């Protein structure tokens, strides 16, 4: 009995040591696979998060040594009127862009979803702008929106709407940027909505039609509830994306006129790389991150609730 016990113990020990050596070997070979990624991941993704946080606590112009200043940059930020202007503009953009960037793609998706001749062509027309770089978009739309020889004013006046000096008027400039953004990016959310629409069972529609539901009621009581998860996801990602708005504004207006389209990311950019105030710029970046993170957490909360 005891000899049996000791053999089984020896066996277990041998198994354990073999497991260990295999684990050690596995660790080494796994490291070989992971090393290329981990090196870059560590240098350009993980380290900069902590380093950026450190920089936000310093006064630094890159030519002299960084000076530790504690939370001074964040305190200075609260008194920086240009930061508040940028934040107000960004919030205005979020408020104007988000509803349109949901309603327009949703409309397009519903229209394109059902079988119709030329469906692929319609879908391409709405998604093609996504492929164009922001610079081409900027060059194109600055000219499209030109008050004297642009097409927008020409057609607006043809149907009786007043033409605008789109990009040189405070207020209208942001509207112009928003119209451009909707044109440029609607395809993205439309594709996500199309994927969501595919998930809704055809039988639901058939059953409702038998009950005599009209087009609007089908949309209201079947499509919308069926798209709940997609709508949540699209909504939150669009809010986050709108908070991060930068390149199209920068290319079209440079933040003008009179800083009326200057956004938070442009404020980071210029504080950091025009005035070389790295500490201040990092403080702005972290404030933006805090806002974005808030919406990400809300997204996760909503997603989890919609799962249960």
């Amino acid at each position, binding site marked *: 009995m005891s000899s049996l016990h000791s053999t089984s113990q020896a066996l277990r020990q041998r198994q354990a040591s073999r497991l260990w050596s295999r684990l050690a070997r596995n660790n080494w070979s*796994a490291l070989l696979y992971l090393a*290329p990624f981990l090196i870059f991941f560590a240098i*350009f993704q993980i380290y900069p998060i902590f380093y950026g946080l450190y920089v936000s606590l310093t006064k630094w112009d890159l030519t002299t040594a960084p000076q530790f200043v504690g939370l001074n940059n964040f305190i200075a930020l609260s008194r920086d009127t240009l930061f508040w202007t940028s934040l107000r503009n960004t919030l205005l953009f979020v408020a104007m862009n988000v509803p349109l960037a949901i309603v327009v793609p949703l409309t397009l998706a519903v229209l394109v979803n059902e079988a119709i001749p030329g469906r692929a062509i319609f879908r391409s*027309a709405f998604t093609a*702008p996504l492929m164009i770089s922001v610079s081409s978009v900027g060059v194109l739309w600055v000219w499209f929106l030109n008050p004297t020889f642009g097409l927008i004013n020409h057609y607006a006046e043809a149907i009786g709407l007043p033409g605008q000096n789109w990009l040189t008027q405070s207020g209208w400039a942001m509207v112009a940027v928003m119209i451009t953004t909707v044109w440029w990016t609607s395809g993205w959310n439309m594709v996500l909505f199309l994927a969501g629409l595919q998930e809704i069972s055809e039988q639901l529609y058939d059953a409702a039609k038998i009950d005599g539901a009209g087009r609007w009621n089908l949309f209201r009581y079947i499509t919308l509830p069926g798209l709940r998860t997609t709508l949540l996801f699209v909504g939150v990602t669009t809010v986050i994306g709108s908070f*991060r708005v930068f390149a199209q504004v920068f290319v079209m207006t440079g933040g003008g006129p009179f800083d009326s389209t200057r956004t938070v990311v442009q404020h980071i950019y210029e504080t950091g790389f025009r005035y070389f105030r790295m500490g201040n710029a990092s403080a702005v970046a972290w404030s933006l991150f805090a806002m974005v993170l808030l919406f990400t957490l809300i997204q996760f909360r909503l997603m989890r609730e919609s799962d249960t």
Partner: protein
Amino acid sequence: MMQLAIRRRLVRFPWVRFVLLSVLALIWASPLLWMLANSIKPESQVISIPPRWLPERLSDWTFDNYRYVLFFPRGIDLVQSFLNSLFVSTVGTVLVVIVDVLAGYAFARLRFLGRDVLFALVVASLIVPSEILLIPNYITVWRFQWLNTYNALIFPALAGGFGVFLLRQFMLGVPHELEDAAAIDGCGSFRTLLWVVLPLSRGAIATLAIFTFLGFWNDFTWPYLVINEASKMTLPIALIQFRGDYWSEYGQLLAGAALSALPAISLFLVAQRMIIRSITLTGIKG
């Protein structure tokens, strides 16, 4: 009888939706068509009041704008920028795919200490907005003396966790039986990856490659920051420089914009289904 069938089909045809879609599609396509239509007008006719779609005489159509931009650059050389973009996008995409395939495979199939923690870190990194990395990464690249080099454009992009996440999820779905068979035949893990898992992951890899390529091709914010030498510029930032050089020559400016948009649009037309699928997959990312 046949007339009746035709009439029934005409009645069933969703006219309202078709007309609505046609109008919307025309509106969506008009900026691009307008760009193309004007890039082939003679310079003197590009700006006209009221604006016109066609040149004054159809025989006025000309490719001069493209010829000047390509072969007789007055300011920045867009051909050079095109080659820069092509190099950075191609090399960058190949490297991203290699690095992410290796890492994705390790996360999906190998067992090692700290795997789950590390993978959670990769997933968590996906929610970090790239704007907070701008300043620290600029400082790193500056310390490495990579400003105005292709290194600055390519290497930081290899740090992104999205491809690793995408490929890991996909490879988890590859059936184990095939790999076991390969192992019995004496294949090590690397050869199993190369001959079994890789061919089965073609779809996911192609998706990642197209997406990464478009990302490199169209990226603006980071290249604008780290490149300011004209000879190293990629197309999106070169075009902004170009706009400064050609402020008054709209025809040539539009030809330049069209030239930089055409490769991405052609890629889109060729691989449309895959691109649309990859947008859906990116959607899953959140």
